[in-house]
């Protein structure tokens, strides 16, 4: 019987190395700012942030698995809970909640009430189309892809755009089977 993983990331969060929150927030701000300068188009910046997040996610997943002792999730519902409760706590120091499940359990919302990335941020009029935290959606997409889940992650609510919370919509597109594609008759 595999050990059941933790239901909260508190213990792991207490044990991992951390950096000053302000340094982290300001570094991220500087990156976004630089991307805006370099790419000029807000749409391009959104894409680039998502790609950067993806590149982080495909590596981060291994650290998550190594340090969290989470074992295989039985379904996508459990996966979403683990991301919200353990993943966000471990890497961002905040806890998210999961809501808005659709009928077949393949689409849900991860709601963040507290988001350290935006502590000092006010979006100017010129950047209205910017998804400032788009790196997070990329991280989730990349991480899940490494454990054979193709997902689509989009922002449904963004506090920088006047909503009351941050809400990420995670949609499971397909589960790539891990079995090798051997067939008996081939």
């Amino acid at each position, binding site marked *: 019987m595999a050990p059941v993983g933790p239901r909260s990331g508190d213990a792991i969060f207490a044990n991992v190395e951390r950096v000053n929150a302000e340094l982290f927030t300001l570094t991220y701000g500087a990156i976004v700012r630089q991307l805006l300068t370099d790419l000029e188009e807000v749409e391009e910046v959104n894409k680039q942030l998502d790609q950067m997040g993806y590149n982080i996610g495909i590596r981060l997943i*291994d*650290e998550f*698995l*190594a340090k969290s002792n989470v074992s*295989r999730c039985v379904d996508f519902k459990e996966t979403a809970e683990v991301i919200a409760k353990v993943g966000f706590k471990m890497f961002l120091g905040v806890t998210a909640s999961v809501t808005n499940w659709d009928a077949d359990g393949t689409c849900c919302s991860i709601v963040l009430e507290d988001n350290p990335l935006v502590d000092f941020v006010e979006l100017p009029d010129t950047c209205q189309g910017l998804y400032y935290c788009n790196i997070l959606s990329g991280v989730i997409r990349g991480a899940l892809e490494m454990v054979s889940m193709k997902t689509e992650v989009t922002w449904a609510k963004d506090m920088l755009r006047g909503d009351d919370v941050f809400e990420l919509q995670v949609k499971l597109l397909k589960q790539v089977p891990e079995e090798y594609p051997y067939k008996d008759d081939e």
Partner: protein
Amino acid sequence: MAAIYSLYIINKSGGLIFYKEYGSAGRMDTNDSLRVASLWHSMHAISQQLSPVSGCSGIDLLQADTFDLHCFQPLTGTKFFVVCEPGTRHMEGLLKFIYELYTDYVLKNPFYEMEMPIRCELFDINLSQAVQKDHVALLGR
């Protein structure tokens, strides 16, 4: 006195990305180590198919007359395995610890290309410390 003979890390597609020998027993040239890695990758996959138990994740331990082979495969599909003297203890803990070192010193190195051979000095240093016997015993506690 129990000893570790060698350590292998293979990527998702069965390519050897890290190989290290400890001591002179069971020494192999590069071609042989590559062969062992891809052979183990295939055997591991076949064992999953052959297993009468559904949801089997493959061979964890292979015991032979002259060596034990302990394998650890996290959900992402990278495989870590050690070949050691029969009856060597605490290998599961060691493999898990090596996995942590891999996430810290290989994956976080921005110049490491995913799925490619591992050439990271910090990983080597920390690995040799982990493999030292007293440390292995410590992990078992």
